[in-house]
């Protein structure tokens, strides 16, 4: 708590902004890291990517040391000078990262790194294996009359538009026929049990038998499976949505060395392996990925095959976001 701060002034504090229950706040890790570096980790949580951007913009120097942006805001954050340049040379584990993540264009500006990929995952289809024996092969499954009333689509403008773009055969990152997308989504609306907003909602509905198929994140599907739910995750052949979460060091930090140490730990094989194998998202660390049981990897959408089918989310300008969001709002508001 706040009052403890005063007593251990010589101990450095590392302020991390992340999702809750998303690796960095794992109590075993925190204990180990604090022990190793004689420091303290203070976790703050974000509730959306945009919110993280707001936090970065409104925070004072030193309030946040490390954060976890993804590509939807990364470009803006870098442009605005909110993140510090990163020297990959200071990260022992950088080299063992998959090449495609190292070369991800959003983490760089003018050939310099500003963020370090951490984990990746996909938003694709999860279904109830008790109810659906034939694994769906296309994104169209979510738009299929067959599952009317049993589908849970995600309440997220980006996922909605990208999924509809896949179904209508457009480039998910640069769709041109937004009207077609709107029509598709409107038609799809009637088939839904609900739009889910939080992972909690999905898991409860799924466990309660309210839904049999839905858009889902790879990581959560995997952890639900481990909890014993009859769930299976597929990245369909026509593709799905991929995303990467990246660590960034915040401009103005007073604990830069500690931040590097932290990130290095995060992308280390041990950490990445144990989290991914325990129901977390897919690792960027190649060694960690290879260590994972291939069956499990396939079931959690972490395998090469799945990876190659994904359309990784790209940075979008404000106008595009507004446009997509408004389209999605209109779909939701139309009865």
């Amino acid at each position, binding site marked *: 708590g706040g009052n403890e701060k005063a007593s251990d002034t010589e101990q450095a504090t590392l302020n991390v902004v992340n999702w809750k229950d998303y690796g960095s706040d794992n109590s075993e890790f925190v204990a180990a890291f604090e022990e190793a570096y004689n420091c303290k980790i203070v976790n703050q949580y974000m509730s959306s990517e945009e919110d993280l951007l707001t936090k970065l913009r409104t925070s004072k120097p030193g309030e946040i040391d490390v954060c976890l942006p993804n590509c939807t805001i990364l470009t803006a954050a870098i442009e605005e000078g909110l993140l510090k340049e990163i020297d990959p040379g200071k990260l022992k584990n950088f080299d063992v990262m998959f090449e495609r993540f190292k070369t991800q264009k959003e983490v760089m500006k003018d050939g310099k790194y500003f963020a370090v990929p951490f984990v990746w995952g996909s938003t694709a289809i999860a279904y109830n294996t008790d109810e659906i024996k034939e694994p769906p092969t296309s994104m169209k499954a979510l738009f299929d009359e067959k599952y009317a009333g049993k589908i849970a689509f995600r*309440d997220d403008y980006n996922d909605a538009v990208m999924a509809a773009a896949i179904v209508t055969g457009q480039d998910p990152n640069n769709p041109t026929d937004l009207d077609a997308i709107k029509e598709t989504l409107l038609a799809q609306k009637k088939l839904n049990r609900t739009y889910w907003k939080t992972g909690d909602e999905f898991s409860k*509905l799924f466990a309660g038998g309210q839904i049999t198929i839905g858009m889902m994140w790879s990581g959560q599907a995997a952890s639900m499976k481990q909890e014993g739910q009859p769930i299976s995750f597929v990245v369909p052949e026509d593709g799905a949505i991929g995303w990467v979460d990246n660590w960034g060091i915040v401009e103005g930090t007073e604990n830069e060395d500690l931040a590097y140490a932290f990130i290095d730990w995060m992308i280390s094989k041990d950490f990445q392996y144990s989290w991914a194998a325990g129901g977390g998202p897919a690792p960027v660390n190649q060694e960690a990925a290879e260590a994972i049981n291939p069956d499990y990897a396939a079931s959690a959408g972490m395998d090469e095959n799945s990876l190659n089918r994904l359309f990784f989310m790209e940075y979008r300008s*404000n106008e595009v976001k*507004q446009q997509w969001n408004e389209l999605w709002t209109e779909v939701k508001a139309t009865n």
Partner: protein
Amino acid sequence: MQKKWLTLPGLSVLFVFAVAPLFIMLFYSFQSDNPVMEFTLENYKHFFEKSFYLTLTWNTIKNSFYVTLISLAISYPLAYIMAKKLKGARNIILVLIIIPFFTNQLVRVYSWLIFLQDGGIFENLLSSLGIVHGVLGILYTRTAVIIGLVHAFFPYMVITIYLALEKLDNALLEASASLGASGFETFRKITLPMSWPGIVSGFLLVFVPCLGTFVEPRILGGVNGTVIGTVIEDQFFEIYGWNFGAAIAFILLAMVLVSIQIFTRLGKERAV
């Protein structure tokens, strides 16, 4: 010291921590989205140009209104019984009404979700009583949203009405009866008007916050759970749409203030 200065601390808190910061937002609501910020009415215009925003607003108002009415219908009898019929137990009941609110809103809403879902507790309960056969189908309808909202807000109504009724002098009720008024007439002409301030306060405490909620509609309303509150929330949390989000909020504020003016006018005629 003059009594009116007593308002000073309260008013300054409101000014410093509500009005002043809101001016920042008001400023945003008149800014364009372009990297170069400039004064514009675009955000407000935009809202009125898209018919679905208006539809959403209207639906939100309607919903809030239903919630308020239902809350009133539930609260009034409860408050009345507490104030006029129960002597010792009423304070306990008052506290019992408040206690459930020591739990988190989200947790409560999720409990409703579990309770109302098809094959859930409510369905089992009803079918074991033989009232309902087959699928209940309440979750993800407007009914579910209204149940959730009424539950979240009606205690405010109970409390304000209770407090107004509690000090109502019994002699007035007796006088009314002695003049030949039936229980109903006495209620309509004496009890109700005398508790009017409580109803007004209760109305405001239910209707107004209801307009801005998004949690219950989103979670219990399913595909039709979009309300003006969720739109505003999305503007801030999903895309970087502060300007437009702020504009919607101020439009909402304007509507509320106007309707309050009308409402208090109505109330003033009945003032003691």
